[in-house]
């Protein structure tokens, strides 16, 4: 058997392609859900971490540190296999989305914090001197400027979340990787795995390239 037939077996690829596509849909569903929920969670956490009363700031900081330290795979297994013992039974989809969101939210919080802290203090002072409320200051003055700064690292985080969705296959989620391994078993040929790898590359590579472009542009402006 030659190498080409083993890894790039066209009939096998064509046969298993619908399975891979259904896996891709699941992967995108988990990824997009977790990214959006993570963004919201991260923004709230970052604002709490910076501006909440002291008694609330500390637990938020601890949360952020814990969820940046814990391996995602460990968290996912705890959520899926351990929580049922205390009566919390989440579906594979929810387990994956919740785990990814908890971790992504922690990273996003730090990204937003860095972005907001990069805004010169004069912007806050001018807003306060004009009598703007805290909410107006954030919405009209601070966040629009911070967003520009955080877009490259946020996009990076999105890429990481998308890649980490592959871990959902561990909790029997029929995502792209899981479908590929099943297709491999059915076809007795590793071509579907190569196909999955290529599909991951095909939609993540452009995002990686986009981040590089953002970073180049910001770098030029800073220079």
């Amino acid at each position: 058997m030659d190498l080409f037939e083993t890894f790039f077996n066209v009939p096998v690829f064509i046969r298993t392609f619908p399975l891979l596509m259904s896996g891709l849909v699941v992967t995108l569903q988990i990824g997009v859900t977790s990214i959006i929920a993570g963004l919201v969670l991260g923004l709230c956490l970052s604002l709490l971490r910076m501006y909440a009363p002291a008694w609330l700031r500390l637990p938020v900081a601890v949360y952020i540190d814990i969820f940046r330290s814990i391996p995602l795979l460990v968290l996912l297994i705890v959520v899926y296999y351990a929580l049922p013992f205390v009566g919390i039974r989440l579906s594979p989809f929810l387990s994956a989305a919740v785990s990814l969101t908890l971790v992504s939210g922690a990273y996003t919080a730090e990204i937003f914090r860095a972005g907001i802290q990069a805004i010169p203090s004069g912007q806050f002072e001018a807003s306060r001197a004009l009598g703007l409320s805290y909410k107006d200051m954030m919405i009209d003055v601070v966040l629009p400027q911070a967003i520009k700064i955080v877009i490259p690292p946020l996009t990076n985080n999105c890429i990481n979340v998308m890649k980490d969705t592959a871990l959902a296959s561990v909790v029997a989620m029929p995502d792209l990787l899981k479908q590929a391994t099943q297709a491999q078993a059915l076809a007795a040929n590793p071509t579907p795995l190569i196909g999955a790898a290529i599909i991951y590359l095909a939609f993540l590579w452009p995002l990686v390239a986009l981040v590089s472009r953002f970073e180049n542009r910001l770098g030029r402006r800073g220079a």
Partner: protein
Amino acid sequence: MMRNIIEIENVTKHYGAFAALSDIDLTIGEGEVVCVIGPSGSGKSTLIRCINLLETYCDQGSIRVDGIPVQPGPTLGQVRAEVGMVFQSFNLFPHMSVLKNVMLAPMRVRKTPAAEAAAKARELLGRVGIAEQADKYPGHLSGGQQQRVAIARALAMEPRVLLFDEPTSALDPEMVGEVLDVMRQLAGTGVTMVVVTHEMGFARQVADRVIFMDGGRIVETGTPAQIFDTPKEERTRNFLSAVLNH
């Protein structure tokens, strides 16, 4: 008799062991133009930043603007709406056009409708001589133009008091004049002005009263003629001879 608009009583502020302000007592009447002069680190900026609570003075003392105590809480917004501020480094909002910079606070704080706020903003930009720059972004303006936008932005709230924190110190020398001209026009329109400045010519010409500060204290206060021509305190004389004869 002039009504008092700013009343500062016995204000003291420490940074650790360093006394930034010591026993400041000062009343400023409505419509008065007061220039605060003194060496760097003498507490001039700290003092005016306490008037709209950009600096806290919780150590001791009280400040009232138009009778309203300046303190954290629900009345602070009222005070800040009445007190405009112009900063040394302009602090314009770089992501908004010049017009939007001037419109923002009236729309958000006074709930002025957008069309009305825009008309008012254009009128103010005309008053500070840059009507034609309304649709540009702050980054495309010279320092002098940016500072004039900042003045228009402060004026848009129709404040009773305007605080100027070294408004010309960050400007190239050739742009100082255009900003001082705008400030000169403002003096005498009835708005109360408190100006921290190193422009002695401006202070002498425009101020109703000059305050000399050193080491966190008000050392001497008087008319420009009294302070500049016949200063009583030795520290005032030393400072003036250092800045005027260089």
